[in-house]
């Protein structure tokens, strides 16, 4: 299978995501924002950083990038899309994920290793995890407070679209109901604020993030086999 990682001007973690993806799959290619061609990617990652300087609002300009038209079409056909940090913001702005990300309650950028709890494990993004399992993954952002109307939050929980929550006492940004990552209703688009691509090697902190990439790989392998 092949991962495609989008590169916008201002992306910062795209190479990290590419390296992380390459650890679990042979092929991971950077996709230029101005190019509508996804180059045969079986899964798309919208990476972290500050796309277009995050001017206007985090992710607000990137959603209009030519490549995002193709990502939307890919997602509509059931293709798996993973948004990390800025990528989560972009996917929310693009309407591919519910809710929005607001400024951290502390009003500051925060870089910290956080503990997450896997809420839903039977998904393309968490199938390598156990429900209730804890993952230690770093978060680093200034605009990571997940927000949605109460009714939407109820719906997300009822539909089991909340895949990851910050463990008790670990919520770094004031996210509603400690939500760290949500999927769309169809389950093939997932966004999270913490950075699994920065938790793929013991030497640099932890390997818990690999499970997200492994899940996605296994899902794609299965999808391709069908």
């Amino acid at each position, binding site marked *: 299978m092949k991962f495609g990682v989008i590169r916008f001007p201002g992306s910062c973690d795209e190479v990290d995501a590419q390296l992380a993806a390459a650890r679990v799959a042979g092929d991971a290619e950077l996709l230029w924002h101005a190019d509508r061609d996804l180059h045969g990617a079986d899964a798309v990652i919208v990476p972290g950083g*500050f796309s277009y*300087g995050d001017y206007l609002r985090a992710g607000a300009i990137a959603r209009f990038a030519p490549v995002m038209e193709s990502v939307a079409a890919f997602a509509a056909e059931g293709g798996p899309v993973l948004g990390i940090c800025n990528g989560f913001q972009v996917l929310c702005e693009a309407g591919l994920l519910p809710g929005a990300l607001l400024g951290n309650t502390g009003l*500051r950028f925060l*870089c910290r290793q956080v503990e997450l709890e896997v809420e839903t494990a039977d998904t393309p993004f968490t199938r390598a995890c156990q429900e209730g399992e804890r993952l230690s993954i770093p978060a680093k952002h200034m605009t990571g407070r997940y927000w949605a109307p109460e009714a939407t939050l109820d719906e997300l929980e009822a539909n089991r679209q909340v895949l990851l929550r910050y463990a008790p006492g670990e919520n770094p940004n004031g996210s509603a109901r400690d939500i760290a990552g949500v999927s769309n209703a169809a389950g093939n688009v997932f966004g999270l604020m913490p950075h699994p691509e920065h938790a793929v090697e013991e030497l640099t902190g932890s390997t818990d993030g690999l499970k997200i990439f492994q899940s996605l790989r296994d899902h794609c392998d299965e999808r391709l086999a069908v």
Partner: protein
Amino acid sequence: MTSASLSESRHRVLGLTDAEYELICQKLGREPNEVELAVFSLMWSEHCAYKHSKRLLATLPTSGERLVLGPGENAGAVDVGGGLAVAFKVESHNHPSAVEPFQGAATGVGGILRDVFAIGARPIAVLDSLRFGELSSRRSRYLLERVVAGIGHYGNSIGVPTVGGEIYFEGPYEQNCLVNAMCVGLVARERLIRSAAAGVGNVLVLFGASTGRDGIGGASVLASAELGEADEAKRPSVQIGDPFEEKKLLECSLELLERGLLVALQDLGAAGLSSASSEMASKGGVGLDIDVAKVPLREPDMEPFEIMVSESQERMLCVTEPEHVEEVLAVCRKWETHATAIGAVTDSGLLRVLAGGEVVGELPVRALVDDCPIYELTPARPARALYAAPPRTLEATDPGGMLLGLLGSANLASRRWAFEQYDCLVQSRTVRRPEQADAAVLALPGGSAIAVSIDGNGRRVACDPHTGTLEAVFECAANLACVGAEPLGLTNCLNFGNPEKPHVAWQLAEAVRGLGDGCRALGIPVVGGNVSLYNEGPQGPIYPTPVVGIVGELPDAARCAGIGFAREGDVIALVGSLSPSLAGSELAKLRGEPLPDGLPALDLESISVAHATVRAAVRSGALRSAHDVAEGGLAVALAECCLAGGLGASVDLGAVEELDVALFGEAPGRAFVVSGRADALAELDAALPLGTVRGDRLAIATGVATALDIAVTDLARARAEGLPALLD
């Protein structure tokens, strides 16, 4: 008023002396016009010409086996094997940060990043060394908040991790805060590029942001004179940073180099186009024609002199062959970076400034770059103490109370509040994060790693400029030894007061002597640096603050020790000869004691042995933790090891003469607290066993008596709450 007297008064406004102005007239054979005077005033400023420090800097060792690029280039570089070089440099942005802290600090980071990618290296880490007045001052709290936010804003947005640094709070920095930023870059040796312009007829391309009126006269107005009362008015001299523009500029520059399109590359920093172009011409021994009418402007109707001296950020200048111009412009378009051919390389030896068809300035490159007068300093050891005693802030007299007081004090409390505002992980190389080890460790391809640390305790340098500077060098090297790294090269930023004053000149001369002695003892070259003078106001000079950054290498990234005690039952030992003294110590400061005149000397030979012992033991895996004994002495070092590992320790120092001295006396750079298996430590040369990693309390005894016994959770609370409490 005659035209002559008009221009004479103008040169003084621009910071040139009458004698310097005379010399300029002599070099030109006429009076300079407005454009020429503006360019000269910047190129002959302290900031660009180092006219008060050049002679001293020439005494520093600048050669070494691993040296790839030394002083004079945009950044220095050392070989780290595998065809790779590591580029690094530290630079100050003190004066701008004192005037506008957020943008001052942000553009400080932006400037040092450009220095590193100007030689073709990808920036892989930033470290910062910051100094502010005491936190009891509202201004210092404001400066700290905004400087940290500015550093984070720029570094985080551009995707370069901020992996380390230091912050000190001392009264003499109240009016003149220090913001020194160091950048480390990685480059394949064959991709290194220099700034020397070459090839008559080659094209000069300016790319990046457009040019505005921001930062006009920054180098001369801000960086080369004392700050006074009315500095609000200097705010327009501070540049405004745009990390997104720089991120594109960085990727664009590296792609241009990857495609082999450039003959030379130079960033635009202090003195803007004037400095960049004359440096490029000077190094290449050529002339340059620049048409300011072709420079993309942010606002209309800018004067030619304004275009030449603007310090608008995020701009680069490159030389390319005529047949490559189109491809250069195409790469810049891809990265949405504005690029314009603005001139050409000539054989005239002149920097010719054109405005459309008209020549508006003609400057001999040599006169601009090489002919600035160099001044002799007149150092004189001050007869009386220069600095007032700090206010007393610690009342506790029992050892436990003193330890908690030290751990919660502004200089020793946890820096978590600051470093959590920085992305320390991006680029996936960070093996040791802040507070995990004494030096930042960054993995290299192939399993090895580099370690980086930045150090400089100004108060100790104020006590004794020579010894204090030596200590800074050895403390920095000790931090590297703790992760098993061998020093390869040093960069420095010399932050001092007004060098025209004999007592400041003495501090500067003594500090540079210490720096040279330290480098020679370690066998490493100075690869480059920066000088920031005139850091003084009506209240007097700052503490003399040489900040040193050292890059070292370690063979195995997986074998770098951390600070924290790692396993119950491990033996704790002291390596190195610790002859502590309270002179100039943190405890003496908190007790409000005046600065002593002089510090105990260092025994360079025994220090080198201690460093080598720890380095080898970390590399062999014999040690599970290593931490140098620095501010706050042995008790604070032990507490920090407990806190980083979440384990307690039982330690017996044996009979001591003076308890305060034994616990809190300092001797920076000389000794280490290490831990490991008993048999591994038994084999370690000159390791003095102190005790055992055990339980959840730090207990220190002196023979039969207990000096202190405190729960690790209480130590943690004191250190964690220190900074937030002082900021409230």
